[in-house]
């Protein structure tokens, strides 16, 4: 077990988990937006629950992408060029999503605002689904040639397992987003969000079971790690967190429910990591997989990047907590709100 490379495997996982937990709730809020809020007042309540923080949340993705490039450049090159159309669609959605809240607030017309509301919903749904599809494909393994370049087709990426994982991601983010709305909004919006939380929770449970059983048949390599009993801690954490989420939701303890779905997301990414390690991209149908040793950067680069992470990330976490604390409590609209 090469320590530096493994540390970076874990760190990339932490960055992606940070992304899925934080952007996860605002992607979920975006998907719920069209359904839980009626009229401009309610919609503004929803939008302003994520308005000040969504951009910072998305930075976890950019940093994760940069870190993947720095630590495992071959994975960055193979996956991003191999999943070209998927990535292009994700980027197109993220471009529109990045402007929609600011642009929406600049004109009062219902047509204008309604259009941006739809954009916000769709541009939250599409990346959630496609991130899941991408992760599902990577878990399943990609067809790689002798140079570890992608050797498959676009249609090959649209396989049932990847689609199940895509839907699982959507359900997970809905669960996360609904808990956030339960915490941040009030009145009818909160009530509807709580209803959606229950439905999404059920979908999450079903889809997780399907994905888990399916992976047993489709991708047995994902189960290697679970020969060691200690690995079972992670799925147990996931199951407990998901079960408790539902109970906490019923008791109206939104903050704790949100904390539990956050833990569930981290555990879900932990499961992915456990299943994959030491590979980052298993080669489908033989061939050399991209793993922590053959796809990584030089030890010096990994060390330098570790220093960057150790110096930088505590600072980031520190001021992010400060910023969130300024916006604590339920949404209160003022003249500076979106």
């Amino acid at each position, binding site marked *: 077990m090469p320590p530096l490379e493994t540390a970076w495997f874990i760190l990339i996982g932490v960055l992606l988990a940070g992304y899925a937990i934080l952007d996860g709730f605002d992607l979920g809020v975006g998907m719920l937006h069209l359904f839980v809020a009626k009229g401009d007042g309610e919609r503004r309540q929803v939008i302003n629950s994520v308005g*000040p923080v969504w951009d910072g949340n998305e930075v976890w993705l950019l940093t994760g992408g*940069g870190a993947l490039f720095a630590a495992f450049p071959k994975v960055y090159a193979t996956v991003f060029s191999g999943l070209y159309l998927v990535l*292009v669609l994700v980027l197109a959605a993220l471009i529109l999503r990045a402007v929609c809240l600011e642009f929406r607030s600049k004109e009062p017309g219902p047509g204008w605002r309604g259009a941006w509301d739809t954009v916000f919903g769709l541009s939250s749904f599409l990346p959630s689904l496609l991130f899941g599809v991408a992760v599902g494909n990577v878990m399943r393994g990609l067809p790689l040639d002798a140079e570890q370049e992608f050797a498959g087709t676009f249609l090959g990426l649209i396989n049932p397992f990847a689609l199940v994982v895509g839907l699982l991601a959507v359900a997970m983010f809905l669960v996360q987003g609904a808990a956030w709305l339960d915490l941040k909004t009030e009145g009818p919006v909160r009530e509807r969000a709580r209803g959606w939380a229950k439905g999404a929770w059920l979908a999450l449970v079903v889809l997780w079971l399907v994905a888990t059983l399916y992976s047993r048949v489709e991708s047995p390599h994902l189960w290697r790690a679970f020969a060691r009993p200690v690995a079972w801690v992670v799925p147990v954490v996931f199951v407990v967190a998901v079960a408790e989420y539902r109970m906490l939701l019923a008791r109206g303890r939104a903050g704790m429910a949100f904390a539990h779905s956050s833990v569930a997301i981290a555990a879900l990414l932990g499961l992915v990591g456990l299943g994959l390690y030491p590979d980052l991209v298993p080669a489908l149908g033989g061939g050399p997989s991209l793993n922590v040793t053959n796809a990584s950067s030089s030890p010096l680069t990994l060390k330098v990047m570790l220093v960057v992470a150790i110096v930088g990330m505590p600072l980031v976490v520190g001021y*992010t907590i400060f*910023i969130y604390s300024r916006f604590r409590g339920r949404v209160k609209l003022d003249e500076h709100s979106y």
Partner: protein
Amino acid sequence: MDVVWLARLQFSLTVMFHFLFPPITIGLAFLVFLLETARWRSGKDVYRRASDFWLKLFAVTFVVGVATGIVMEFEFGTNWAAFSRFVGDIFGAPLAAEGVFAFFLESGFLGLLILGRKRISSFVRWLSALMVALGTTLSAFWILVANSWMQTPAGFRLAGGRAELTDFWAAVFNPSTLPRFAHTIAAAWTTGAFLMAGIAAWYFLKGRDSDVARVSLRLGTVMAVVACVLNFATGDRHAKQVARTQEAKFAAMEGLYTTGQGAPLILFSLPPTQSGRRPGPELMITNLTSFLAFGDFQAAVKGLDEFPRGDRPPVAITFLSFHNMVILGNLMLLLALAGLVLLWRGRLEASRGWQHLMVWAVPLPTIAIQLGWMAAEVGRQPWIVYGLMRTRDAVSKVVGAPQILFSIVLFGAIYVVLGLLWLHLLRKEILHGPEVGGSHVGEVPVATA
């Protein structure tokens, strides 16, 4: 269609469109920080209203910069996989560092500054403005580290078919990093300053002058003078560095075809061809390029004849974009200096002629920046990493022309819409104008949390 050509087209379109916005936000962030400092120290309401107004324009521009920047972060992997494999050991680190040290900072504190104004103290508001300015500037630093390494690679060795890091600080502070960073920041300040002064001038011309317009006109003008002088100081240093480290690019920028001592500075000529200057009217100063580049009127400067044809950049684009950038730089300096004289004489607010010129000058820094980057990037050709990897060898092998074409059309359509909406919203905010003093009676300027 040729994959390399399409990939280059896509990169140039997405990066040129993206870079319309960061210079505005880097420049405005610094100006807002100055306004915030004045507000925090003096407590005068006019600075609060000025800061509020410019923050609105900043926010609309910032989101477009963010939106178009996301694409750039992933485009190296999607379209330039061979490049990514070759340079990943070095190139990925500054991109990750940009996220850790810059993006979190600017996005987090901007949320607080724009939407949380009622929830923070006067000091935290000032601090947030400082962090946003710092974040945007650090972002420029790290991405320019990555670009500069492609221009003047350092701190590496070639091993196992890739460039491997041997000295992190040598790679970060490679020969072109600091000159490029200084010149880019000066240009961004110029952009912010001309935007601020131009819009303030427009309010005066329309008879909508207010205390905010007055403060903005003065600040914009003073900043324009400072930034335009810095453009020349930093540009001079940057060009001297190019002359030493990228000789073929320098020869193309200056239109020099033959090596010799006492190289002239061509001020004006017809567009040159790949093999030589076009006969026609010319204006040149003998020996000046030698002096500007090496401090010696007789210094030898390499011409394009020193380089095999296959290693020469496209001369006409490099030459024309560089020269037109310099012409615009001079024009902006003259405008700024005229403003300084008017300010000195106390006639800044009365001089309608100069105000008209300043309104028209708002896009000049942006045009100059685009031209400057064309000179920098086209002048680097045929290399993607200077002297190490050719652009044609850098593209993704598994991505075909139809896929790239699809993404160009998709991004192109979105960018056209985005650009038009941005202009529309900017215009709307400008027409709406800053909050007028005393209209919000009883409002507490900044909540003390």
